């Protein structure tokens, strides 16, 4: 996974609560089995009219937000379906950080596996950051210090669980980590579980 330290970038505002992963990546594109090259499907129904023409007002179509690497979004961003395509399409579209008051939990976990930092802030802070983004001001997301820095230099702290933060800072692949450090513990657990619940291992 690509590591993340600090990023100063244009932030696109997406106010409105409950932007679900069906909106981020519509279901009909889920037939595509590739993980890369999904950029054009991000927010497809919001970005393109039925005839395929870009909808000029949609924030990610506006010239000022070309090159945006941060999304500032309404409450419960990424709720709904577990589809990781929602993260792949955002990452492919250049997004490295998403800021909201809360996230769909599976989406949030998926972000952390794909080099995207989920930043949780209070409703008041979110409103301030939405306003900043609407004015086209850049934001800085500093994962090392766990702060968002506004263009007026105000620093806003946020928290990410230690293990997720470390993985993002170092670009670690979680499967490698587990295989390298925990294989013996997994085998020991399996031996215990086989004795305690042998019916779960029938057929192994």
């Amino acid at each position, binding site marked *: 996974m690509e590591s993340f330290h600090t990023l100063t970038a244009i932030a696109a505002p997406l106010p409105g609560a409950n932007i679900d992963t069906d909106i981020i990546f519509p279901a009909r594109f889920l037939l595509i089995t590739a993980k890369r090259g999904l950029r054009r499907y991000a927010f497809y129904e919001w970005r393109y009219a039925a005839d395929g023409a870009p909808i000029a007002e949609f924030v990610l179509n506006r010239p000022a937000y070309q090159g945006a690497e941060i999304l500032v979004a309404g409450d419960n961003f990424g709720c709904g379906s577990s589809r990781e395509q929602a993260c792949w399409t955002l990452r492919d579209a250049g997004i490295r950080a998403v800021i909201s008051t809360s996230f769909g939990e599976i989406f949030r*976990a998926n972000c952390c596996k794909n080099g995207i930092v989920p930043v949780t802030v209070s409703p008041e802070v979110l409103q301030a950051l939405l306003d900043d983004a609407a004015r086209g001001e850049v934001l800085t997301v500093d994962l090392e210090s766990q702060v968002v820095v506004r263009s007026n230099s105000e620093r806003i702290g946020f928290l990410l669980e230690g293990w997720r933060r470390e993985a993002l800072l170092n670009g670690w692949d979680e499967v490698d980590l587990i295989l390298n450090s*925990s294989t013996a513990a997994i085998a020991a657990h399996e031996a215990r579980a086989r004795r305690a619940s042998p019916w779960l291992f029938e057929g192994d």
Partner: protein
Amino acid sequence: MASTLYEKLWAAHEVEASPDGVSLLYIDRSLIHEVSSPQAFEGLRAAGRGVRRPQAHLAVADHAVPTRDRGRPIADPLAREQVALLAANAKAFHIRHLGLHDPRQGIVHVIGPELGFTLPGMTLVCGDSHTSTHGAFGALAFGIGASECECVLATQTLRQTRAKTLRLRITGALGLGVTAKDLTLSVVAALGATGGVGYAIEYCGETVDGLSMEGRMTLCNMSIEAGARMGLIAPDETTFAYLKGRPMAPAGASWDAAVEAWRALRSDASAVFDRTLDLDAGAIAPRVTWGTSPDQSAPVTGAAPDPAQAASEADRRKIARALDYMGLAPGERLEGLAIDNVFIGSCTNGRIEDLRAAAGVARRGRVDARVTAIVVPGSGAVKRQAEAEGLDRIFREAGFEWRDPGCSLCVAMNNDRLEPGKRCASTSNRNFEGRQGIGARTHLMSPAMAAAAALAGHITDVRQASR
């Protein structure tokens, strides 16, 4: 120390624990479908990794499969390739796979329980948010992304942060015509779309005790719509009776030992939950969603809200946007709203009990001439059972289409899709914008309510229709 059911399940699966509540959790089993697995298998290949315990997984295609013309190859080349890729990956990694023509094929969350693959006390995951369904058996079950699917295939573990616990106690008798679906829509409305974020919900109380396994699965299924990745119900005699004799459930002495262990799977009387909430089932009417988030619902006798009355500007905007998408006026009554389509099925309401309830209404009339209504059984087993009971005949004679099992119009990834602007009475779980097709308008409700809407041609109170 007294523990909740969630804490017991968590502790029993900790491979490595840390004081901050982050543990490496052992995953006993996983269900695999065609949409969230290709990239996981590709990841294994790219890293030269194998599957740690092939027997711990069960693969089946459900999302992309057509629900008719199963005798022919899948028409859509992308869907055909995706379904074929699942079969090829399962074969390459020695994972059990139920093909499109296997009589056991069906929606992951329907077949897991009916095969006895889902059992109390286990951890179970799937690259699908409605994996919360399996919590109805007292299993710690949650949806994950494709990267986590890969992690489970390779290591049989996941690193997880322990959830907070929410006890939702439901008491009182459900009224006539009121079902588990109405209960879960009420729960989601009470908690809101984010009320369950960070929590594992344990449902308990006399109403839950009285529910069948089908009803309990419906209840746990939609926990995710309140933001909770997990719903849980302590296993009891109803659970054991459902599981006994299922093909993949333990048998003989193994069954007896399992049941004895499963009896301990309940929250201790003095266990402390992070949050508790009580709900009176007797006060619940059949419910219908009016908006584009599953928490936006009202009793069928009610109306869409008026954004002008909203508590905050943010709420006003949220309601106004939803009403605009749904083509509803502020304060518009739900009863009488003309519908174009009816969908009966999904991992929420595609089980035999759901089809019985819908058929019970369908037998009293004919589908309105303006309405297209489809019934999609949750699995091959559900379909055969329904046909043995003559339900398919009731549906067909009433003018419903009787289809083959799959996710169908719940996710509209296959060729079952609604036209823009069409209004659908649906027994599925999500009324998101575009969920059933671009611009389609979804009203979530129970199977009996959806069947009643099909006959009436508009949303109607099944309690009135029953008289």
